[in-house]
């Protein structure tokens, strides 16, 4: 079974530029998550989708971050404009459902460096 795919794996940009990340979840997984992991910290949820609808985006800085999941499969996360503090690893995860017992499976992440 293929895992969660993410691209690119690494990205370096200058502040105020824009950047986009792509995620393809495990086939059949209805729920998709984007997490931000700053160096030395645990991942923090940015946004959660159930199919193509947003379930929770309370931690998403909406003035600069946006995400979509068209057709309920792939997802993109965008940052515009980027700030230095956005340097982090962006992890995508998926799960079969969105109950508390569902296991989330993570992709390899995209490491973003903002200069």
């Amino acid at each position, binding site marked *: 079974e293929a895992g969660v795919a993410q691209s690119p794996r690494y990205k370096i940009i200058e502040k105020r530029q824009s950047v986009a990340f792509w995620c393809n979840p495990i086939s059949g997984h209805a729920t998709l998550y984007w997490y931000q992991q700053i160096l030395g910290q645990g991942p923090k949820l940015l946004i959660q989708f159930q199919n193509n609808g947003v379930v929770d985006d309370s931690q998403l800085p909406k003035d600069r971050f946006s995400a979509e999941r068209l057709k309920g499969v792939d997802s993109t996360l965008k940052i515009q404009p980027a700030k230095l503090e956005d340097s982090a690893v962006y992890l995508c995860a998926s799960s079969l459902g969105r109950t*508390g017992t569902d296991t989330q499976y993570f992709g390899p992440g995209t490491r973003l460096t903002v200069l």
Partner: protein
Amino acid sequence: AQSVAQPEDQVNVAEGNPLTVKCTYSVSGNPYLFWYVQYPNRGLQFLLKYITGDNLVKGSYGFEAEFNKSQTSFHLKKPSALVSDSALYFCAVRDQSGYALNFGKGTSLLVTP
């Protein structure tokens, strides 16, 4: 609010010795608890989870964890450590309302030959 604490930044153990990585949690109601491992430049890999039932949960790669409700703990254990177990370990909790996992800050495990 739900949270987990991993009190140790780093755990050092010799190969072949038992290992324990500690985790305590705070949640209203019954918790759902998870352990993940992260190798350098890799995403998080699921190890095991506690939902209900037996307090001793067995997972991948010989790891197990013990749920202790009175101490609100969910420590990760392995009877005999391998050098290849060296990685970053994260404990996470969810309450019954579902949604996001709340992660601890992680514990770096170093197993020396």
